[in-house]
C-alpha cells in the first residue's frame, strides 16, 4: 500500500466543501466491508463546532483533483457516534470502527503519526460535541451535513437501488418488535437519528451480488425484472469474482438500528391492516421433480401447464438436478442452464412472466416466476439454502428457499430433498427441522425465518415412505386404493398426529400413484435387485390462511427420471393495499404518534420564575426556593446551562443547588437559589459596575428550557469599596447617594477632589480601618490567638452595619476582638485594589531582599495606599510590643499580613481546566512568593521606618 501525500488529499477534500466548512485532516485508509479491504480516504470536517467524518472513494489513484473523490459515507461526530480503535501489536495497521445509528464504518490505517493525529482529532471532536452548550438541543442535527449525506453513495444505494422499495407498505409483521416499551417513544434515538432509513429499504437484492458465491450463482432476478432481460448468467460478475475483487459498490453494513418510533408505526399498521387491505385471489403453481441427474425432455408443458388460465406465480422445485461430482465442487452447472431454459420455455403461454429468483444448492434448485403485471407489487426478495447432507454440510441433501412480499402478504417457498431410505424417517424429520431452523433471510435484521411468513409452500422430494410390504403396496396401486396407501405414509401419519414435523402444514389428498421409484424411461416400478417399495416421495405442502388447493397431480407421461413430477395449483388470498385507505390510516397513525411524542416530551412546572432578593448585604446569604415539578410522563433530567458565551451558568454571586438533577414523573424537586456577595464580588456591585440581575436557564435534556429571572438590590458597603473612595467619604457609606458613590469609585476620582472646598477634605486612611484598628488597639493588645480564632458571623455582620451606617458610631466594646480582627482582615481582602496595588506586586517581590529598595517602593505608592500600609504596619508593630502577652511573633505577622496586603491579580479564567493549570503552576511558585512577601513585610515590622 502506498500513501499519497496527506496534505494534498486534505486540500482536495476542502475543495468539495462549502466555505464555512473546513477539512482539518484527511488520511488514506482501507475500508473493510465483507472482509474485503478497499482504498478510501477519511477526512474530518468541521463546521462551527460540529464535526463529521467523511469517507471518500477514489476514482483514480493518486487523486489529482477534487472530482476524483466520491463521497461514500458521512458520519456526524455527535452524541450517538461511537468510535473504537484497536492496534494489534503484531500488525502495522490500526483499525478504527465508527458507528452511528445509521451506519458502521470499519477502516484500517497504518500505525503512523498522521493516523494517531486523526484519532486524536476524532476524540477531540467528540469532546467538543459534549461540551457545546446545550442550547438548541434536542435538535443537534448537524444541518450542514444533510447535503453531504444525500450525496453519499451509501445513502443513495441503501434507499435508491431497490426498484420495489417504492410506495408499498410492508407491515413487516414478522419483524420482531420490542413489545416491552411499545408505548414509550424513544426520544433519545429519535433525536440522534436525523434521517431514518427504513431498514427495509436497504434490502435491495443487489446486495446479493456482493456476497461470495458460496451457493448458487444464478442470482439474476431483480436486475432482470428491471431490464426485462432474462438471461440468467452475469458474465461481468463472474469475471469479477474470479479475479477476487468485489464490484465496488459496497453497500452499507445492514443491521441498522431502527428507531422505536418506526417500530411503533409498523406495529400500529400491522394491527390495522384489515382497514386498508383487501384480499385478492392469486393463482400459484407449484411443481416438484426429482430428475435423477437427467437433462430435460423436449417439453415440460404437460407438467407445468395444468389449467387454461395462466397462474400468477410459478414455483418450480428440482432435486438431483446434477449428480456429477463437479456439481459439488463448482458453482456452475451445465445442467442448471438446461433446466432453466426448459422451465422458461414451459411457462404458461397466455401470460408474460419475469423471473423473481432462482437458487441452487448442488442438485436442489428452486425457480420462481411471476407474471410481469405484478412486477410493481413484489419486494424484499431474498433467498437462502441449508445443506443437510453428509456431516450436515454437503449439499446433496438440504433445502433452498425464496421469499418475497407480494402486495401486503409475505410468501416463502421451500424446496428440499430430505434423507433417503425406508427406515430413515427420523433422519428426514431432522433434516426438516434443520432447514426450518437454519434458513435465514439475511437481508433482514434480525434475519427472517421461514416460520415468520404469512404463507409457506414446501415442495420437494421429502422421501417419506409407505410402511407396508411391497406386495401390499403394489396391489393397492393396482386397485387405485390411494387412500389406503397414504394412511400408512410416514409423513401423512405425522401430519395427522399433529407432531412437531411439518406442524401447521397441510397437504391435499394425493389421488395419484406413488411417484417413486420407476425404471427410468418407463411407467414400471423399480425392477432392480433393490426392489424398492413404491412411495409418495414427492409432495407439495402449504401453511397459512386463505390457501385453496385446486389440483394436486402427478405427471407419469414424463419418464426420464426414476421419479414422476408432481404439480399443484392453488388459489391464494393475497392482501392488497388500498392506497386511499392506507394513506388515511397512515396519517392517522402519524398524528397519534406525534401526539404521543409530544406528550412524552419532558414537561415541568416551575412555581416561581421571577425571584427578587431585597436588600442583599455583604456576606449575608439570602436563599429562595424554587419548586420544579415534573408534570410530564417520563423522568426528566434538568441542568442549569450557560447562556450565550458565558463560562458558567450564572453570575458568581448566585448559586443554584442542585444545579443538575433527575426528577421522577409526578415528583417535585426543590432548588435553592442563593445570592451571596463576598469579597470577590462585592467591589463591582459597590461601584455599580454590576447589578444583582441574572437569568438562569434551566434546561431539560431533550426538552425545553425555562428561564428564571433573578434580581435584587445590593446594599452598598464599605467592604468592597476602594481606599480611594473611602477616604473621600465623610459620613458612612449608606448616606452617600448612589450616583456620587459611582462617581468616586471611578478611576482618578481623587485627583478631581477640590481639597480647598468645604467637604473636599480627605481622610489619611479609610475611617473604617481606623475604627477597627482603634478597637483592636484598645482591646486586643493582650489577647491570645489574635487573627487565629474565627469571629462570629452575627458580630461580623453587626460590625459591617456599624461601619456602613455609622450607627452606633463606634464599634461597641462588647464585641469579641476575634470578630473585629476577622472583619478587619475581610475588609482588607475585599479591597478592589489591595493595600499594595496590583501593579506593584511583582516589583515588591523583587525588592523584598533589599531594605532600601523596599522603602523606595512604598514611597512610590499612591498616597492613600502608602498611608494605609504604614498605618497598618505601625499597628502591627504595636502588637509585637505586647508579644509576651498576645503570643504573636513577627514571623507569623509578616507572612500573614504579607498574604493580605500583597495580592497578585487573579487572572480571569476562561475555563475550569485553564484555572486548574494556572493554580497548579502557581503552587510551585507559591512558597517562593510567600517567603518574599514575608521578607518584604519584615522590613516594616522589625523597625520603625523613616520614609
Amino acid at each position, binding site marked *: 500500500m502506498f500513501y499519497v501525500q496527506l496534505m494534498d488529499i486534505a486540500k482536495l477534500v476542502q475543495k468539495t466543501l462549502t466555505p464555512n466548512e473546513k477539512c482539518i485532516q484527511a488520511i488514506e485508509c482501507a475500508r473493510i466491508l465483507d472482509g474485503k*479491504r478497499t482504498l478510501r480516504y477519511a477526512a474530518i470536517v468541521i463546521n462551527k463546532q460540529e464535526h463529521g467524518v467523511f469517507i471518500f472513494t477514489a476514482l*483514480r489513484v493518486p487523486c489529482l483533483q477534487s472530482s476524483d473523490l466520491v463521497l461514500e459515507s458521512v458520519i456526524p461526530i455527535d452524541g450517538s457516534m461511537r468510535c473504537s480503535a484497536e492496534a494489534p501489536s503484531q500488525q502495522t495497521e490500526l483499525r478504527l470502527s465508527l458507528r452511528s445509528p445509521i451506519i458502521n464504518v470499519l477502516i484500517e490505517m497504518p500505525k503512523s503519526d498522521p493516523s494517531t493525529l486523526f484519532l486524536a482529532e476524532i476524540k477531540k471532536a467528540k469532546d467538543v460535541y459534549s461540551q457545546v452548550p446545550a442550547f438548541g438541543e434536542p435538535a443537534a442535527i448537524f444541518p450542514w451535513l444533510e447535503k453531504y449525506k444525500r450525496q453519499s453513495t451509501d445513502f443513495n444505494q441503501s434507499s435508491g437501488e431497490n426498484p420495489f422499495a417504492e410506495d408499498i407498505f410492508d407491515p413487516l409483521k414478522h419483524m420482531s418488535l420490542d413489545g416491552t416499551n411499545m408505548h414509550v417513544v424513544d426520544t433519545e434515538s429519535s433525536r440522534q437519528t436525523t434521517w431514518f432509513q427504513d431498514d427495509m429499504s436497504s434490502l435491495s437484492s443487489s446486495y446479493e451480488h456482493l456476497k461470495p458465491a458460496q451457493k448458487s450463482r444464478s442470482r439474476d432476478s431483480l436486475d432482470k425484472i428491471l431490464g426485462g432481460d432474462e438471461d440468467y448468467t452475469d458474465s461481468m460478475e463472474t469475471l469479477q469474482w474470479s479475479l477476487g475483487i468485489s464490484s465496488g459498490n459496497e453497500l452499507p453494513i445492514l443491521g441498522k438500528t431502527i428507531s422505536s418510533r418506526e417500530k411503533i408505526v409498523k406495529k400500529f399498521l400491522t394491527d390495522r391492516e384489515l382497514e386498508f387491505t383487501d384480499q385478492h385471489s392469486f393463482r400459484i403453481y407449484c411443481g416438484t421433480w426429482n430428475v435423477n441427474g437427467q437433462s430435460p425432455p423436449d417439453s415440460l408443458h404437460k407438467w407445468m401447464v395444468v389449467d387454461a388460465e395462466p397462474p400468477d406465480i410459478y414455483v418450480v422445485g428440482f432435486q438431483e438436478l446434477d449428480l456429477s461430482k463437479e456439481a459439488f465442487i463448482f458453482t456452475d452447472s451445465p445442467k442448471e442452464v438446461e433446466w432453466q431454459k426448459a422451465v422458461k420455455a414451459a411457462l404458461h403461454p397466455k401470460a408474460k412472466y419475469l423471473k423473481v429468483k432462482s437458487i441452487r444448492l448442488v442438485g436442489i434448485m428452486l425457480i420462481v416466476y411471476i407474471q410481469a403485471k405484478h412486477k410493481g407489487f413484489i419486494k424484499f426478495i431474498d433467498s437462502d439454502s441449508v445443506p443437510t447432507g453428509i456431516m450436515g454440510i454437503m449439499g446433496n441433501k438440504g433445502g433452498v428457499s425464496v421469499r418475497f412480499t407480494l402486495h401486503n402478504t409475505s410468501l416463502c417457498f421451500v424446496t428440499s430433498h430430505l434423507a433417503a431410505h425406508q427406515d430413515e424417517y427420523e433422519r428426514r424429520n431432522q433434516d426438516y427441522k434443520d432447514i426450518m431452523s437454519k434458513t435465514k433471510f439475511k437481508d433482514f435484521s434480525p434475519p427472517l425465518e421461514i416460520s415468520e411468513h404469512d404463507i409457506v409452500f414446501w415442495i420437494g422430494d421429502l422421501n417419506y415412505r409407505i410402511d407396508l410390504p411391497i406386495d401390499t403396496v403394489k396391489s393397492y396401486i393396482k386397485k387405485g386404493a390411494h387412500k389406503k396407501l397414504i394412511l400408512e405414509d410416514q409423513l401423512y401419519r405425522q401430519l395427522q398426529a399433529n407432531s412437531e414435523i411439518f406442524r401447521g402444514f397441510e397437504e391435499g389428498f394425493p389421488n395419484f400413484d406413488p411417484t417413486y421409484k420407476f425404471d427410468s424411461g418407463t411407467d414400471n416400478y423399480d425392477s432392480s435387485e433393490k426392489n424398492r417399495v413404491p412411495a409418495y416421495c414427492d409432495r407439495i405442502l402449504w401453511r397459512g390462511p386463505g390457501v385453496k388447493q385446486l389440483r394436486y397431480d402427478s405427471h407419469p407421461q414424463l419418464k426420464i427420471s426414476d421419479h414422476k413430477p408432481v404439480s399443484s395449483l392453488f388459489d391464494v388470498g393475497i392482501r392488497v393495499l388500498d392506497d386511499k385507505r392506507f394513506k388515511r390510516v397512515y396519517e392517522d397513525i402519524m398524528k397519534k404518534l406525534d401526539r404521543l411524542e409530544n406528550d412524552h416530551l419532558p414537561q415541568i412546572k416551575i412555581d416561581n420564575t421571577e425571584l427578587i432578593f431585597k436588600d442583599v448585604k455583604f456576606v449575608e446569604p439570602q436563599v429562595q426556593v424554587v419548586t420544579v415539578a415534573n408534570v410530564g410522563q417520563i423522568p426528566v433530567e434538568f441542568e442549569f446551562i450557560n447562556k450565550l458565551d458565558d463560562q458558567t451558568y450564572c453570575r458568581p454571586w448566585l448559586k443554584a443547588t442542585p444545579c443538575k438533577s433527575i426528577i421522577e414523573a409526578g415528583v417535585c424537586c426543590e432548588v435553592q437559589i442563593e445570592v451571596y456577595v463576598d469579597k470577590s464580588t462585592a467591589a463591582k456591585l459597590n461601584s455599580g459596575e454590576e447589578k444583582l440581575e441574572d437569568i438562569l436557564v434551566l434546561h431539560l435534556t431533550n426538552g425545553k428550557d425555562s428561564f428564571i429571572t433573578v434580581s435584587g438590590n445590593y446594599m452598598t458597603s464599605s467592604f468592597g469599596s476602594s481606599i480611594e473612595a473611602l477616604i473621600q467619604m465623610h459620613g458612612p457609606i449608606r448616606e452617600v447617594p448612589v450616583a456620587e458613590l459611582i462617581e468616586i469609585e471611578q478611576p482618578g476620582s481623587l485627583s478631581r477632589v477640590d481639597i480647598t472646598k468645604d467637604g473636599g477634605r480627605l481622610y489619611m486612611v479609610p475611617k473604617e480601618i481606623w475604627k477597627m484598628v482603634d478597637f483592636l488597639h484598645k482591646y486586643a493588645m493582650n489577647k491570645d490567638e489574635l487573627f487565629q480564632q474565627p469571629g462570629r458571623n452575627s458580630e461580623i455582620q453587626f460590625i459591617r452595619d456599624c461601619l456602613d451606617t455609622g450607627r452606633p458610631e463606634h464599634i461597641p466594646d462588647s464585641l469579641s476582638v476575634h470578630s473585629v480582627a476577622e472583619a478587619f482582615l475581610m475588609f482588607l481582602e475585599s479591597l478592589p485594589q489591595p493595600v499594595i496595588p496590583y501593579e506593584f506586586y511583582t516589583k515588591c517581590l523583587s525588592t523584598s531582599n533589599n531594605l532600601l529598595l523596599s522603602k523606595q517602593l512604598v514611597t512610590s505608592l499612591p498616597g492613600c495606599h502608602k498611608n494605609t500600609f504604614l498605618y497598618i504596619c505601625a499597628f502591627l508593630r504595636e502588637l509585637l510590643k505586647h508579644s509576651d502577652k498576645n503570643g504573636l511573633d513577627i514571623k507569623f505577622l509578616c507572612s500573614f499580613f504579607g498574604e493580605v496586603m500583597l495580592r497578585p491579580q487573579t487572572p480571569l479564567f476562561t475555563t475550569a481546566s485553564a484555572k486548574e493549570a494556572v493554580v497548579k503552576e502557581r503552587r510551585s511558585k507559591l512558597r517562593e512568593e510567600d517567603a518574599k512577601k514575608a521578607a518584604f513585610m519584615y522590613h516594616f515590622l522589625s523597625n520603625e521606618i523613616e520614609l
Partner: protein
Amino acid sequence: MAKKTYDLLFKLLLIGDSGVGKTCLLFRFSDDAFNTTFISTIGIDFKIKTVELGGKKIKLQIWDTAGQERFHTITTSYYRGSMGIMLVYDITNIKTFDNISKWLRNIDEHANEDVEKMILGNKCDMDDKRQVPTARGEAIAREHNIPFLETSAKANINVEKAFMNLAQAILNKTPGRVSEPNINIGTQDTSARRCC
C-alpha cells in the same frame, strides 16, 4: 407513501413580541386546538409534527420562544441552527408590528444566513380591533422579500398553510439526491483497488 417514518428533520422557530399568539399558533398546528388562557412562555419550548411534502415525510421540530424584552438577548442564541423562522405580530396591536424590523435585525445578526423567513399577522379574526392594515404587513414583507400571511390561531385561518409554506421553502432549498449513476470503481480501474 414512502416507508420511512421521516426523511428530513426541519427545525423551525417562532419569534415575535410577547402575546402575539406564537404559542397558540403552535398549539393550533400541532394539536389542532385553541386555548384562550394566556400563559406567557418563560423560556424555550418545542413540539414536533410530522408532515408530508413532495412525497417526503418531514418531521418539523417547532420551537416557541419567550417574547419578553428581557429575554431577547438570551433567545437569540436559539436562532442558530433553525432552518425556518416564523416572525409573528398581532394585527390588533400596532406596537408588535412596529417591532418587526427589530426582530428582523435580530434574525440578520443571529440566525443562519440561509434561514427561511415568514411574517405572520396573527389574530386576523379580530378585524374590528385591527390596528395594522393588511397592506402594511404586505408592504414590509415585500420590502424584505419575505412571504407574508395573516393568520388566526383562534379561527384556524392559514395556520397550516403558514407552516407548510415555510417547510416547503426549506425543502425547495434542500439539495436533492444526486442523480448521477454510481461509479463502479472495480470495473474502471482495478489497480486503484488492489493497491491496498
